[in-house]
């Protein structure tokens, strides 16, 4: 414990976790739902970061995995009453399979960089079209999850309950994802991924099985993302293909990580906080000024400013400012 306390990063992290764990005591439902948005954004950002930040493989179609996870969990629950935590396995399996197809196509046929990103968009888009016409999942008119009866107790197993319950679920998932990413990065595979990200040819020359390690990154990233999708389905209670599989979601999902710092552990969390705070702050400001669109313009300008001033993201800069020891991540 004393060794842990000497690590200022660990202290900061535990402090943050404690504050977040106690937040429902002070925050109302509105504030909690904002925090849920932040945590979900951070969770999804971390999932995307495994593939892009660690292994250097650019996916611009992560909405695909969000959607597959959301629909697998949601549809199984609606049709068979399957508990979401069981449905999540189905979602993860389907997402991993989709990732395997995309990864195999991309990596075997040497589709790299931007072209690989285009491939990921294509899969997300045609899956969206498919779901738009698939009656079993409600097609384009959407899938609706039956809400819990009023004043019924929280049911964690079926994920039916209060905002507070959802808050703790996503807090747990985000903390778990953070721990998981950290463990990955500190192991052999983490070093292999970073080597592949920095120079694939040099990694190959050191005997690393590049294809296999990139595939593992895709499978892990896709599975993690789909679990986030499951959460989204049960929190929102409604699913529309055009929104869940949208390009807009894919971009939103990675924006926090880009702002926070690609390839870093804490970047996705910081980025999610900054983006949501910025969004909420500008909404309030926009309401005071009373001109439509001010929010969007200001939001865009702020993002551009951050990226121009801190191209590596906010976290590497903040980390230096706070003098947190570390080895580059």
């Amino acid at each position, binding site marked *: 414990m004393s060794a842990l306390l000497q690590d200022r990063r660990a202290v900061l992290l535990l402090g943050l976790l404690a504050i977040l764990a106690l937040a429902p005591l002070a925050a109302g439902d509105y504030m909690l739902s904002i925090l849920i948005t932040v945590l979900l954004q951070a969770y999804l950002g971390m999932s995307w970061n495994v593939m892009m930040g660690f292994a250097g493989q650019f996916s611009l179609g992560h909405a695909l995995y969000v959607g597959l996870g959301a629909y697998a969990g949601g549809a199984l629950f609606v049709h068979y009453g399957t508990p979401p935590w069981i449905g999540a396995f189905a979602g993860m399996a389907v997402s991993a399979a989709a990732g395997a197809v995309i990864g195999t196509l991309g990596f075997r046929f040497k589709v790299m960089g931007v072209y690989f990103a285009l491939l990921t968009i294509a899969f997300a888009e045609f899956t969206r079209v498919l779901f738009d016409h698939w009656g079993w999942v409600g097609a384009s008119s959407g899938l609706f999850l039956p809400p819990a009866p009023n004043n019924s107790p929280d049911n964690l197993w079926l994920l039916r309950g209060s905002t507070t319950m959802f808050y703790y679920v996503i807090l747990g998932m985000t903390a778990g994802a953070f721990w998981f990413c950290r463990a990955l990065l500190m192991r052999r595979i983490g070093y292999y991924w970073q*080597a592949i990200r920095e120079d694939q040819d040099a990694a190959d020359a050191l005997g690393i099985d590049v294809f296999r390690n990139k595939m593992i990154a895709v499978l892990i990233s896709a599975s993690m993302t789909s679990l986030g999708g499951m959460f989204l389905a049960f929190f929102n209670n409604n699913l529309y293909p055009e929104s869940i599989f949208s390009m807009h979601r894919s971009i939103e999902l990675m924006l926090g990580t880009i702002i926070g710092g690609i390839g870093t552990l804490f970047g996705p969390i910081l980025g999610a906080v900054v983006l949501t705070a910025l969004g909420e702050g500008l909404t309030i400001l926009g309401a005071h000024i009373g001109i439509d669109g001010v929010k969007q313009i200001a939001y865009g300008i702020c993002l551009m400013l951050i990226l121009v001033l801190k191209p590596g993201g906010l976290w590497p800069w903040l980390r230096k400012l706070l003098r947190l020891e570390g080895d580059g991540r």
Partner: protein
Amino acid sequence: MNTAAPMPLPPMLVVENLGKSFRGLRAVNAVAFTVPRGDIVALIGPNGAGKTTTFNLIAGALPPSDGKVVLDGEDVTGLGQAAICRAGVGRTFQIVKPFAGLTVEENVMVGALRHDNGDVEKARAASRAILDLLELGDRAKDPAQTLTLPDRKRLEVAKALATRPKLLLLDEVMAGLRPVECDRMVAILTGLNRETGLTILLIEHVMRAVMALSHHVVVLHHGEKIAEGTPAEVTSHPKVLECYLGEDHE
């Protein structure tokens, strides 16, 4: 290495009739040579002689159009770079390829992680030992992108050594080094060769290093082998003088 083996061990590397065509261009043609176990062999020749291509064929970065590469008695022709590395060939790149965003220590760890079941701390210790050997120990925690070119060349050697190769392929690691640094590198490589029996095949333009290091020299010109022998033999070989200095050098 000298156990009471009933059979003599095969040579470390045998290259037979090696050839590579890029569309119409014949870059390497019918090259054959042997690198005996525990020797240091140099591959020399003018620019464009096909030295780096030959290296890439041996290391598996390129598939040969024809011929065979036999490593330690095992045919590794066309296996691919990663598999040939796992078979025991460590290589450096002429145009250095550091993992720029990682620290110097981590760069070398990546090579070492294939051993000891991927134990990160053991890989770190191995990395430190190799970096100390190559006099990069004090740069261990710096990002690789901050290294100067001579240091990057040393890092290339360190990364290749971390994979624990039987055969080390060095592609112009002396280029850009000052004479003193060059002599240090020669001393390090000779030491490694003497103490661990590491077999080394190197491409080198710095003749000072070639003369000091190699037991045997192979000369390539226009993709073909024109001479081989001891450093002294090769440097006085008429064909070698001709290709370096032109026909009317006398």
